[in-house]
């Protein structure tokens, strides 16, 4: 099916995200307004205006009540989804790379980047849900992600909210206790599957079914699937270009990877060489199944509809493409899966 092309942003996309029900799509880009869209038809619900520069990250709480953004203007902003009004702004010592609500919606984490002499930190705020405009400026927790002078690029809560998983610039994944800030576990997920020199982690997304494992993407042209509990690398998906984002699909056992040639090289090569495609891999067999073309710049962010009905990708080209999966996507099964299904239905 033809995707819906959302042309609401003026500059390259930085993150897209669905709310829990999947009816709304939140997007932020390097321009200074976040957008909220109806995912079903691509109509824009509204924009969130207030940031002074690049917005790096957006998140929505489980009830689609609050929405948070973090940007290069040293600000974390809290918005009411219904009205689009900014209810609170935290000041950050450095640009904010990532924001994320805890699974219960009561905490918010933000990553303050390691620039301008600031040491990279993950900051957690306790939200005052009773009086939104009266939030505590003091973070409840500060995690310094800097044991080896590597900064955190991305971070995500585990499904039970007990831990925060951070993806570092050096290809390591770290697990911190969300109460004590203690480093629980750490594993090098990237930079070990090939010879790539740059292996900073670009995205972390939890598995949609129960969050017991997650996917990471990295500039080292790989994506990995890691178990939350044991921190073991379960699967590795090898691509041929730096990956900026990765997502796990519900319903079907697939993962979607997005990326492409570095943005700074784009103008010097043809589109066909840019590898600006969303790549579908089989989650279990690690085999590439197919690609979806459309963007003419690298893909910066991918989000999958929570019901597995489709996905959205945001690219360096400034467009969001909202795809709906058609029947052949759902019908597709590997031989081994078909056999398993047959066995399950008792026909063997």
């Amino acid at each position: 099916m033809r995707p819906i092309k959302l042309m609401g942003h003026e500059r390259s996309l930085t993150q897209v995200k669905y709310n829990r029900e999947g009816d709304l799509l939140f997007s932020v880009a390097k321009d200074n307004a976040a957008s909220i869209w109806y995912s079903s038809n691509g109509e824009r619900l509204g924009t969130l205006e207030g940031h002074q520069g690049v917005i790096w990250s957006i998140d929505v709480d489980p009830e689609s009540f609050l929405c948070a953004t973090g940007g290069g203007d040293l600000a974390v902003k809290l918005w009411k989804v219904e009205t689009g009004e900014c209810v609170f702004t935290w000041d950050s010592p450095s640009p904010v790379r990532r924001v994320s609500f805890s699974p219960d919606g009561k905490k918010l984490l933000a990553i303050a980047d390691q620039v301008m002499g600031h040491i990279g930190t993950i900051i957690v705020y306790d939200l005052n849900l009773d009086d939104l405009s009266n939030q505590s400026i003091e973070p409840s927790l500060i995690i310094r992600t800097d044991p080896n002078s590597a900064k955190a690029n991305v971070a995500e809560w585990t499904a039970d909210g007990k831990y925060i998983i951070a993806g570092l610039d050096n290809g390591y994944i770290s697990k911190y206790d969300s109460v004590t800030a203690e480093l629980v576990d750490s594993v090098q997920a990237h930079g070990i599957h090939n010879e790539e020199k740059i292996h900073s982690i670009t995205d972390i997304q939890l598995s949609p079914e129960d969050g017991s494992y997650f996917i990471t993407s990295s500039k080292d042209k790989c994506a990995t699937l890691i178990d939350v509990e044991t921190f073991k690398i379960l699967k590795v998906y090898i691509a041929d270009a730096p990956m900026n984002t990765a997502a796990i699909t519900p319903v079907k056992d697939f993962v979607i990877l997005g990326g492409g040639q570095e943005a700074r090289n784009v103008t010097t090569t043809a589109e066909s060489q840019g590898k600006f495609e969303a790549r579908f891999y089989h989650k279990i067999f690690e085999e590439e199944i197919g690609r979806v073309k459309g963007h003419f710049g690298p893909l910066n962010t991918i989000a999958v509809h929570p019901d597995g009905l489709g996905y959205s990708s945001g690219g360096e080209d400034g467009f969001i493409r909202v795809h709906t999966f058609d029947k052949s996507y759902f019908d597709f099964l590997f031989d081994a899966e078909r056999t398993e299904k047959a066995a399950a239905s008792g026909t063997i």
Partner: protein
Amino acid sequence: MSISKEEYAALEQEVNLDDIDFSDLEEKYTVDNVGLDNYVVVDGAPIAPEAKVPVLLKVLKKIFNDVGEVVEGDDGIHMPLENGKSKGYLFVQFKTNEQAERAVKELNGKKLDLKHRLLVNRLSDIEKFGVEGNIPSEFKQPELPPFKSHGYLKSWLQDEQGRDQFGLHFSETFGVYWNKKKLDPEPVFEPRKAFTSKYAKFSPKGTYLFSIHPQGVQAWGGADFSSINKYIHNQVRLVDFSPNEKYMVTLSPVPITMPEGTVDRSIFPFGPESEGHKLVIWDLVTGQPARTFALPPHLESQKEMPWPLVKWSFDDKYCARQGPGALAIYETPSFQLLEKKLVRIDDIVDFEWAPAGVHLSNSKVEGGEHVLSYWTPESPNQTARVALMQIPSRQVLRTINLFQVSDCKMHWQSEGRLLCVKVDRHTKSGKTVFTNLEFFKTFERDIPVEKLELKDVVVNFAWEPKSERFITISRLDDGNINPSIPKNTVSFYATEPAAKGKAAAYKVFHSFVNKHSNTVFWSPKGRYVVVATISRSNGEIDFVDVSFEDDKAKKSPANIKLLRNERFSGMTNIAWDPSGRFVSAWSSSWLSNIENGYRIYEFSGVQLREELVDQFKEFIWRPRPASLLTGADKKKVRANIREYSAQFEEADAMEADARVREAILARRKALEEWRAYRAQFAGKAIKSSDVQEEIIEEIKEEIFEEKEEIIE
């Protein structure tokens, strides 16, 4: 040189006789009892006083001279006398052994008068059996040969992939192979050279494979096709089987003759009563002949033998042979004539058994009745007749009278529900021929007969298995016999559902006109059919679906769609595999000399395989016994057909390529591991926050246009 008596006696004293080896002399002077073969011993002759002996001798001599030449003079007949009376027996010497044998055969048991019956035996037999000590007086248990297992004879049905087997016969070699679709067939055993001297044949349910040899028929079976049984029948030509593979019928042009030697006789399967017979019914399991027959005299001189000569009822319970003006129906396993009487049917031309038990409306026999149909031609004061007869009661269930009949062909529907009689009739002038089809509905009360009158002459008729649909190939008999003009019509018939006030009737749902097609092969499972042209000049196959499902979704008793048309010049035969999935077509060097070889098609006509084989002779699918699945089982399979096809596709892919095979195995393992990994999270799903789902419906009304009209 001579020696005196004394000297000799002295010499004798010296020589120990035991030391001398006389064996060479003994051998030289042994009296062969072969000479006794010319003698017969006759017992049971009248006891006559000496005065009457010459008269009696004269009478007897005449009798014996009728069957052979009795040696002249006193040596010819010797009748011992005692107390002035003959003793009631005599010895007769014939000139040759054969004459003596004929005398035994023809005169043994001959009645001279009311009181006297001659018993004629060979003198050598008396020597052999009569002399004390030759026959042990004590009974000795015959030794049973140790039981030899041939393994599970139906093992091929247990193939995991449910593949079928076929036999390929090329030049002098015969092999059985697994069908692997596109790939090279996999031999079941190393193809054997000189496996058969004529052809090979599977039994109707596929259990045995038979090869034909000058000495007889050989049965093979089991997983490795080892030898199972031998059926000695000299110069056997034709072989046929009862439908449940209990019996085999063989025919040889050479009459059975008893072998000479006694040793040969003891292993010879036939008794003297079979001498001169050509047709043999064998019990397949024991390997012994169940009954032998001489050919009916009218067939003796015939070059082309109608085959099978013995036709079987569906359950092997009865078999029947047709003789002039009569049917001989035998009961198994005794093979005695039913009620010891022939069924007289004047002028009977042909008969057919119903291929299944017939459920007559008034009968409650489980499994159905045995019914056969036959027809008799027109005679000056009688119409032609087609009749149904119930066996064993011999009750004629239904007869129809027909006139202006030139030929009849009886086609039973596979379940025995319907019998179609194709009646070729000629016009009054006798110049042109046209066909009527008469349908006997055996399951209805009184067996109504429906008639379908056609203008064309039907050259081929075929019922769909287990269905009431059928196909005819017909042409208009317009006197033009140029074979290059295609004018055959292939018509697809089905019953139109009964409309209001109208009974269900057969109707043409589709037809292909102007075709050369001359043969019809229904898939054994129905629905798909192959209509083919098999002729010297051209070979063509049309693959047809008669229940084609398309978007129109109009429920019709027959929706005909030509799936594919394939050409195969030189094609001589076509056969469906027993599962109805594949069609094989081949060009046999017995019938054609161009492009000998075979092809395998999918039921839809997609060619899977083609192989040109020099001196290719025959392609035989191994038949399968009837499925053991119940209707419910089959329904279940049909419902899950997707899952099934998935596994088979996977198996096919693995078969096709070793790399693919490895990949699939790796995937299977990965999948297994993943499932095991996921299993530890089962039931541990964490609920983030419980928000009740709420469905909000909003109805919007939009006004597109508003018009105001002023009504005056």
